[in-house]
């Protein structure tokens, strides 16, 4: 009926100007909330109710639209995007075509970012549970009550009875303050997602060649002649990285995917190898077997730059093709083929993700990959490298400067030296800081005693045991009694039934998050439970470190919605309540109880010499963001423009002060470049010799180095020996004397070393043999829950450990029981492209939630027939520790026979029960489902406490 419509249209056409002005932001939010909510609700109701779904967005064409360049918060690729803001409302999203990282591209999550500026499914204001019901409270009341309770617990049980999870989603400034808050509180009991993400990578890689980060970059893959992806499903986890990978493939690069599951990434590979989950070491050594057999290794490289490869060679000899096939299931032809491709196509890059890290011997996997790349001479070259795709948007940054239980920002150790350094940076008295900690000494697990200030705290993967374990078995004063989940989704952790128990045992549970997360609903607590609304990344400014170590500046898009507060503000409020705000924020600019991101980053710049986080001043980062278009996509180097010659967003290490203008390091350990140009070599972090063997590089050095051989790391003594001491200015001398390059706050040692072409961290060999690890040579060990119990005799796990990160940790005693008869299927897990992490924020985004509405398990047709299960049917998936989940079966050949796959993003249902009632009203996500981790099992990496999620057992029965 056109006539009536025309009339309405006419009226409407006149309205926007008036309405646009009259419309307050709050009214807009309500309107848009109704619309979006209506839409989603309609989708769940019978379709006849779907009429309500209608766009309610208003854009006034006559008013100015502000464009804000920001960075996606959903994975580590670091995609820029342009937010269009009008009247404080995020009205549009445009691709940032100039960004050299994504060239405007996004995945499902990135393309749906704008919803974060509108979502009503959030925790809108502070809430607490009173008699089992959520009640709204004020921020003042919340901080007051929580603070009092925590202080009370501290009085009774010491500072270590508070454990808190920081966040890999906080920006560098937020994450840094989280670590600093823990330090000033007097405990190392803080951790974040990196523990259950890439901790084994960081440990394995750092101990092999120096730094624990991705050596090259997504962009650098364009130069690879061969791309091997093992345990990485980039098409779903890092979709925009696939742009570079597929471009490289089009240019003739060979793409190999090795994975137990035929992933969406595998679908694009030239070669795909399926093998049994949990056998990477055997597979990689099977490849090395062929490489050594055919003398494909880079002998000169090994001689000059690698230590201990001969010892690895001995182990590799055991991995004959027959044995490899027996253990992994991969045929000799397949393994030989991949080895040949890698050998014939150099440089080649090796990519791994959670598939290679989340294992009880994850550190062995990682080092096996390293050995393979070292043998081929692929590390430290453009197009080569270990391209370790990180998970969260700032997991690299939070690892570098954030809440880690086992080190201080910049990977400074928990030893007195490390603390002294940071006390100097923070400008606080070391003694005062030390007194904040529990002064008792506890078992260090190596027949010694250690103070909590110097012992690694309880990890995020194990906090449950910190609550549930007998007090006598824990190497600290008392159990964990209060937990603060500050930007952490607990359903990404294993053993949820026990977590429920632990949560219920706590004296206090505080959840700080934009969304309620599973922490708010898993348990049946009635009181002493708080929800504090934290702002999303788009409601605050700050720097964020992508997987390639680039620190992009994320400009603030909108003011925080509702009563949300940025992480840094929350940190300030707690510090104030705990009574050390003045000390903690001594050198940080605080405006109206809100610390500024810029001043926090400057403090980070002043302290983190060890990893070169010192050159990335906020001004430099912003300048880079503003000149994105000037950067070359393959080299990430600016060609002309105001930042000519610098690498995009100064990937660390960017040594020296901002004024020193180090260009950032695109490819780590690359000897073909001058150190002032981002060149380098392997780090001398483990002394100069081991058992009489030289650990320093031999005849290999970065371009233009004045020392044309290996050399140890720089300190004032070395400078003096070399006769370079007088290159320092007088002020530098005063500061640098007696210091090393990592603790010299003047940066003089670094400056002089680099100006002479030398790398401040020395020039050594990479270690294929890591003597300080449980398995110096990476060994294959069967998973704790293995379907091949017959192999346990040959490849057993470790002995149980009494104290490991303060907790007893079981290995052999778990493996002692054979579960493979009752639980015949390998249960492995991974990501979906639509969701991220625990999934709460993405499942609360209707544009994403609509795409995956059911939790499911992928099961091979043969296994489905064995279990009498049809496609689409509801099934029970049960783990050997008793946790079980009721989910949909997806019968597919994507998984091989004997393996099932579940995504880990779901939550809001528990063992068949819907937890909807336990969410604060209106804050439940659109899609709820069983968390797969309800059915996962015990198992922790022998170096880092990484949880085992990729290889456990289960059985599937019709529900």
């Amino acid at each position, binding site marked *: *009926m056109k*006539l009536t419509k025309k009339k309405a249209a006419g009226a409407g056409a006149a309205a926007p100007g008036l309405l646009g002005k009259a419309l307050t932001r709050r009214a807009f939010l309500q309107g848009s909330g109704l619309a979006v909510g209506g839409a989603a609700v309609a989708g769940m109701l019978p*379709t*006849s109710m779907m009429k309500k779904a209608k766009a309610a967005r208003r854009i006034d064409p006559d008013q100015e639209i502000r464009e804000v360049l920001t960075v996606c918060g959903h994975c580590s690729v670091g995609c820029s995007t342009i937010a269009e803001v009008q009247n404080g409302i995020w009205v549009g999203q445009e691709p940032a075509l100039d960004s050299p990282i994504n060239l405007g591209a996004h995945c499902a999550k990135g393309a749906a970012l704008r919803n974060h500026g509108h979502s009503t499914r959030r925790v809108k204001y502070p809430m607490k549970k009173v008699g089992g019901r959520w009640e709204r409270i004020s921020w003042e009341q919340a901080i007051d009550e929580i603070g009092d309770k925590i202080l009370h617990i501290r009085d009774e049980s010491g500072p270590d009875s508070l454990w808190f999870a920081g966040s890999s989603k906080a920006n560098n400034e937020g994450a840094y303050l989280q670590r600093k808050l823990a330090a000033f509180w007097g405990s190392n009991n803080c951790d974040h997602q990196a523990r259950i993400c890439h901790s084994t990578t960081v440990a394995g890689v750092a101990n092999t060649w120096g730094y624990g980060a991705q050596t090259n970059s997504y962009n650098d893959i364009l130069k690879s002649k061969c791309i091997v992806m093992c345990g990485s499903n980039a098409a779903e986890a890092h979709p925009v990285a696939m742009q570079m990978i597929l471009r490289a493939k089009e240019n003739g690069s060979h793409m190999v995917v090795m994975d137990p599951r035929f992933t969406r990434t595998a679908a694009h590979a030239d070669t795909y190898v399926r093998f049994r989950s949990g056998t990477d070491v055997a597979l990689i050594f099977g490849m090395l077997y062929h490489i050594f057999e055919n003398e494909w290794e880079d002998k000169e490289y090994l001689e000059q730059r690698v230590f201990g490869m001969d010892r690895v060679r001995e182990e590799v000899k055991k991995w004959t093709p027959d044995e490899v096939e027996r253990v992994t299931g991969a045929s000799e032809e397949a393994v030989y083929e991949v080895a040949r491709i890698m050998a014939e196509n150099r440089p080649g890059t090796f990519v791994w993700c959670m598939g290679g890290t989340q294992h009880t011997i994850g550190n062995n996997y990682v080092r096996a990959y390293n050995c393979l790349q070292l043998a081929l001479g692929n590390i430290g070259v453009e197009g080569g490298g270990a391209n370790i795709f990180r998970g969260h948007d700032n997991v690299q940054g939070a690892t570098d400067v954030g809440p880690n239980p086992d080190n201080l920002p910049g990977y400074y150790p928990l030893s007195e030296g490390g603390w002294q350094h940071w006390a100097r940076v923070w400008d606080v008295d070391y003694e005062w800081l030390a007194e904040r900690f529990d002064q008792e000494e506890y078992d260090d697990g190596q027949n010694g005693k250690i103070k909590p200030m110097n012992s690694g705290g309880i990890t995020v993967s194990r906090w449950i045991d910190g609550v549930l374990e007998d007090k006598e078995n824990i190497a600290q004063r008392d159990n964990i009694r209060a937990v603060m989940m500050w930007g952490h989704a607990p359903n990404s952790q294993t053993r949820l039934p026990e977590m429920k128990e632990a949560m219920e045992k706590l004296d206090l549970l505080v959840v700080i998050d934009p969304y309620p997360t599973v922490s708010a609903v898993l348990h049946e607590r009635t009181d002493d439970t708080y929800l504090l609304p934290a702002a999303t990344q788009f409601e605050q400014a700050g720097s964020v470190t992508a997987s390639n170590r680039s620190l992009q500046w994320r400009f603030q898009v909108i003011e925080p919605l509702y009563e949300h507060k940025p992480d840094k503000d929350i940190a300030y409020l707690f510090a104030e309540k705990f009574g050390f705000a003045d000390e903690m924020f001594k050198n940080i600019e605080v405006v109206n109880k809100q610390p500024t991101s810029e001043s926090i980053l400057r403090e980070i710049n002043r302290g983190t010499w060890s990893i070169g986080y010192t050159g990335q001043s906020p001004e430099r980062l912003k300048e880079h963001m503003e000149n994105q278009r000037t950067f070359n996509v393959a080299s990430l180097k600016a060609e002309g423009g105001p930042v000519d010659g610098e690498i995009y967003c100064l990937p660390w290490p960017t040594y020296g002060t901002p004024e020193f203008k180090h260009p950032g390091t695109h490819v780590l350990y690359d000897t073909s470049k001058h150190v002032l140009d981002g060149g380098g070599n392997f780090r001398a972090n483990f002394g100069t010799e081991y058992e009489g063997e030289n650990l320093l590089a031999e005849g290999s050095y970065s371009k233009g180095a004045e020392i044309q051989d290996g050399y140890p790391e720089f300190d004032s003594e070395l400078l003096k020996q070399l006769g370079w001491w007088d290159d320092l200015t007088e002020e530098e001398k005063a500061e640098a004397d007696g210091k090393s390059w990592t603790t010299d706050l003047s940066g003089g040692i670094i400056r002089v070393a680099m100006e002479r072409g030398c790398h401040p961290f020395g020039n050594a060999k990479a270690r294929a043999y890591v003597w300080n690890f449980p398995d110096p040579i990476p060994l294959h060990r069967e998973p704790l829950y293995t379907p091949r119990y017959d192999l346990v005799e040959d490849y057993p796990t470790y002995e149980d450990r009494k104290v490991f990160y303060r907790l007893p940790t079981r290995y052999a005693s778990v493996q002692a029981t054979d579960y493979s008869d009752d639980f015949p299927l390998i249960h492995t897990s991974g990501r979906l492209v*639509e969701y991220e992490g625990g999934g709460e924020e993405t499942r609360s985004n209707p544009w994403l939630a*609509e795409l*995956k509405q059911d939790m499911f398990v992928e099961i091979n047709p043969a296994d489905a027939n064995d279990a009498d299960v049809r496609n689409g049917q509801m099934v029970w998936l049960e783990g050997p520790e008793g946790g079980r989940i009721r989910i949909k079966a997806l019968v597919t050949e994507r998984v091989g026979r004997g393996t099932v796959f579940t995504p880990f993003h779901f939550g809001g249902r528990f063992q068949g029960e819907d937890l909807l009632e336990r969410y604060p009203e209106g804050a439940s996500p659109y899609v709820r489902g069983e968390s797969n981790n309800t059915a996962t099992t015990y198992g922790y990496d022998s170096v880092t406490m990484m949880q085992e999620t990729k290889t456990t057992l289960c059985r599937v029965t019709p529900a």
Partner: protein
Amino acid sequence: MNKHHDAAVRARRRWRSMVWSMMAIVFLAMALPSAGYLFAQVGEPTGEPQRQFSEQRETNPRSDMWRDGRRGEGGFTTQTGPYVTNQLMTNVGENYRQIRQGPLMTVGGWFLVAVFLAITAFYLLTGQKKIDGGRTGRTIVRWKAYERFLHWFNAICFIILAITGLSLLFGRTVLIPIVGHQAFSSYAEFAYGAHNFVGPAFSVGVLVMIVLWARHNIPKKHDWVWFKEGGGIIGNKHPPAGKMNGGEKVWFWVGVFALGLTVIITGLIALFPNLGFQTREIMSWALIIHATAAILWMGLFLGHAYIGTLGTEGALEGMTRGRVDVAWAKQHHDLWYEDVVAAGEKPVSEEELHGRQQQGPAPGSTPAGERGT
């Protein structure tokens, strides 16, 4: 008496005018689409004759998959929604388009025009078939009130459905040129709704009719004779017929029963997509069959309506008053008349009828024929 007679005459006139206007609507409905062809140039066929969905003839490793994709083989999709298909591409739609825009619109349209013209020509040539020897003045009950209600209910529904249905099929060609897009869209929205809501009611009516009247329409031997003599439409033969003659039985079985059920079933398939079993393929074929059957049915309907009204003197009364003249009964349905008389029914004259009516409806054999007029 006279007064009564006048009243009866007036009533009859009223009835006639009603029926005529109804007929006029029907004819207009038929005529409008056809008339449109006079105004508008007949559209050139818009599609290419037969589209090829195979894009590459060379073989390549994945050609099988793409061929399947083009053939409409389903894939996997995470999108959900009532109108989401998991097909990359399907040529179901192309078939639908070709048939609808091709034979259905051209052949179907011209078919209706041709039938209409043929009937007009026939009428102009032969004129109305009169009652042999004139009316006797005595009448006999032919259709009871509920039967007449059923008939006219269905007739009205049919006409509404026909008009609205034809509007949706031919409106763009015929009406848009006349009334423009907007007016037509408003009308079409109404027509579409009317069609969808009258349809189910009509379905019920037709089903009831089939159940109630099937027994009158069981084919008999004498029907064969009726057909051999061409139904007596031409010339002066009076082939034998029971309550239903051969022609009416054809209308019943071919029209009401076969085409009716076809139209109803296909209509319901198209009308209730929320039942869930309907794929796009089933739906589009349902629409094609629906329209084809409906057009055929309308053709038959034109004949039925002509014979029942203009074509035959005295036929319409059976459905309006419910009573027919004895002469008409003997002429057209001799076997039935004999049966009725044998069963004890006595023809009644107008006078007796009115007299009886004055005393109120007589108990027993004769139903209240005039009630409702």
